[in-house]
């Protein structure tokens, strides 16, 4: 009996049938565990992404509700914001039945030098969501569910902004088809559409007293008297530099006048703003010159008959000088005429005074009642006199009756520095944040350093690069090196409120691109709430 048992055990040890079956089952189990883990992990990743989407969308909506209801009592304001946040969470399938939700209003923390408000002001929303994600295979290893925790916070839009637009309306914009000129029979709606888009995107309305206010100014060059060198009653202009100075400020006792107009003070009247930009003369608000606005257009400056001398040849026309060139300091002089750099602004502009003053619609209360001041400058050229535009940057344009163009550049930067500094008008208040949109032609396909062909106004080197450009670039990104920026690029970056070493407030683009789209985006950049966590 014992012998038989031993034989059976020995036989069992040597039999191999079904061995592969055992191995197969073991491998399959291992593979099933691995596949199950992969499935569970992937489903967790997807669910986590969905939850983060919901949290971000709800935080932005909640922060927007918070700042949109600033006129209400704080408790009501917060309750509305939390309700909005929960509503967006619910829309995106996150509810209290499947998640643990915590929505918290975030108080505004004043920056250095800004007075602390008497009552707490809430400007942000923080959202924390915890959700249990059931697993399909991990229960086999004792993990029946995984806890997902997603958080987000959003800062509400800075709605209380006083924004002035300073639009270049020089002749080059007429010639490129972007601006209307009735005298030349040209219709161009690019600038009109850009302003309209900007206004509609910001959506100012008198029903929201803490919402944005917008004003519009236009500028070009200078309006001067001209020399009649041979006393024949005509104006003489020399294209060959044989005369040092054709403009005159003193010959007839008259001075040059800056070609600037304030078309609208700061207002929340969206209809008026849109009419000034794109409307008809019949819809023009009272007091706005229909020769310059409704729609926004170039207004020619006509002195009389001119004889243009160029070497041995002469040419005569009866509508001289028509254009006024470009004087970039005018973009700021139109809005801060009391600055010492602005000696030639028209009396109407001078009387109007500082654009962000309370008298001009600015909001200058204490604490949070002080509006954030913004200026958007749009230009397509550089400092130059008309008709002798062929001068290189930082060189003297012999036609200028006063400072050489290089001094116009330094005036421009000085004005910008003064405007950005605190207390720019001597009555307290913060400095103005400046955005500059450079809308340049890019003829010829590539930038040609130091020369002007094929077009005198294609002066931005960075506009020749493809979008998205290095300017304004992603947050915190360094500005391109000086070798990649032409003088006008460097000047406009310096004028803008770009952080040191960056060009985050300079938006160059080519005239082959859409200026209205850029203005829409810029309106969003200026006003939009943002995720902070």
């Amino acid at each position: 009996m014992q012998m038989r048992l031993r034989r059976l055990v020995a036989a069992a040890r040597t039999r191999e049938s079904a061995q592969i079956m055992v191995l197969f089952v073991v491998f399959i189990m291992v593979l099933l565990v691995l596949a199950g883990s992969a499935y569970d992990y992937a489903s967790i990743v997807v669910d986590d992404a969905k939850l983060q989407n919901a949290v971000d969308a709800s935080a932005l909506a909640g922060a927007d509700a918070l700042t949109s209801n600033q006129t209400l009592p704080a408790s009501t304001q917060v309750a509305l914001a939390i309700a909005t946040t929960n509503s967006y969470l619910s829309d995106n399938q996150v509810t209290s039945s499947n998640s643990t939700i915590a929505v918290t209003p975030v108080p505004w923390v004043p920056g250095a030098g800004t007075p602390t408000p008497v009552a707490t002001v809430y400007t942000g929303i923080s959202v924390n969501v915890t959700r249990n994600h059931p697993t399909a295979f991990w229960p086999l290893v004792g993990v029946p569910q995984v806890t997902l925790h997603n958080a987000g916070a959003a800062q509400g839009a800075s709605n209380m902004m006083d924004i002035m637009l300073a639009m270049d309306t020089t002749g080059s914009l007429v010639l490129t088809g972007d601006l209307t000129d009735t005298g030349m029979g040209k219709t161009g709606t690019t600038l009109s559409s850009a302003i309209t888009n900007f206004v509609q995107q910001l959506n100012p309305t008198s029903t929201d007293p803490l919402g944005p206010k917008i004003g519009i100014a236009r500028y070009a060059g200078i309006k001067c008297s001209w020399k009649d060198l041979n006393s024949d009653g005509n104006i003489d202009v020399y294209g060959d530099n044989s005369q040092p100075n054709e403009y005159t400020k003193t010959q007839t006792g008259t001075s040059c006048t800056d070609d600037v107009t304030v078309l609208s003070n700061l207002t929340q009247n969206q209809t008026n703003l849109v009419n000034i930009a794109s409307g008809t003369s019949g819809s023009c608000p009272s007091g706005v010159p229909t020769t310059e606005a409704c729609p926004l257009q170039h207004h020619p400056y006509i002195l009389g008959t001119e004889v243009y001398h160029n070497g041995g040849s002469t040419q005569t026309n009866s509508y001289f000088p028509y254009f006024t060139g470009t004087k970039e300091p005018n973009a700021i002089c139109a809005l801060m005429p009391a600055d010492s750099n602005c000696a030639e602004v028209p009396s109407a502009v001078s009387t109007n005074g500082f654009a962000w003053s309370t008298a001009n619609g600015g909001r200058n209360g204490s604490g949070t009642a002080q509006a954030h001041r913004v200026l958007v400058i749009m230009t397509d050229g550089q400092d130059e006199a008309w008709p002798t535009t062929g001068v290189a940057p930082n060189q003297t344009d012999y036609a200028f009756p006063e400072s050489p163009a290089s001094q116009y550049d330094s005036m421009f930067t000085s004005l910008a520095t003064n405007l950005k500094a605190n207390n720019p008008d001597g009555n307290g208040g913060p400095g103005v944040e400046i955005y500059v949109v450079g809308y340049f032609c890019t003829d010829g396909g590539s930038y040609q350093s130091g020369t002007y062909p094929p077009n005198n106004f294609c002066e931005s080197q960075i506009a020749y690069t493809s979008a998205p450009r290095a300017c304004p670039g992603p947050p915190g990104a360094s500005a391109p090196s000086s070798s990649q920026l032409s003088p006008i690029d460097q000047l406009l970056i310096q004028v803008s409120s770009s952080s040191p070493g960056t060009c985050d407030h300079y938006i160059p683009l080519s005239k082959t691109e859409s200026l209205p789209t850029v203005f829409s985006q810029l309106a969003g950049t200026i006003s939009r709430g943002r995720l902070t966590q």
Partner: protein
Amino acid sequence: MMRPRRRHQREGGQALVEFALTLSVFSIFVMLVIQLGLLFVAYYSETRMARETARWLAVNSKTTTDDLVATHMQNTMLPGLAGAAPSNQVTGTTSVDASVDVGSLHAQYTPCVTNGSVCTDSDRAPGATLYVQLQYNVAGSHVLFLPTNFRIGSLEVNVPTSLPAYRVYVLVE
């Protein structure tokens, strides 16, 4: 007298047969795992694209026509999703949402309803809520390489080829 050979002791080729059986099952299993991974990548991309498109639309709600939405999606296809020129476009009205196919991606979203170049639909106004819903059909794309139709006798099984639709709601800014 000849003794009959004991057939059950023959083991030649046994390992080969077992290996073939195991390999086929193992291969199917591995392919299933790869297939599942690709489907998850596609679905993850679908959810991300829905969010990114909705956010972009919320930021540019006034000036983004239905055509531009389709072009934007075509230009921003994420990994795992095959794009193509937009087709089957349904321009939205005040009562019908906009939809378009971009390759195998079917998109449905709050319409523009243009007046000139500006969207006038009230759901595109600042403060409104708009949505973007995406659904990706993996049939015919590089995502799907295993058959989706199985038949044993009269029994036929068809595996759905559309990934679950994902809809995201955002505030118009």
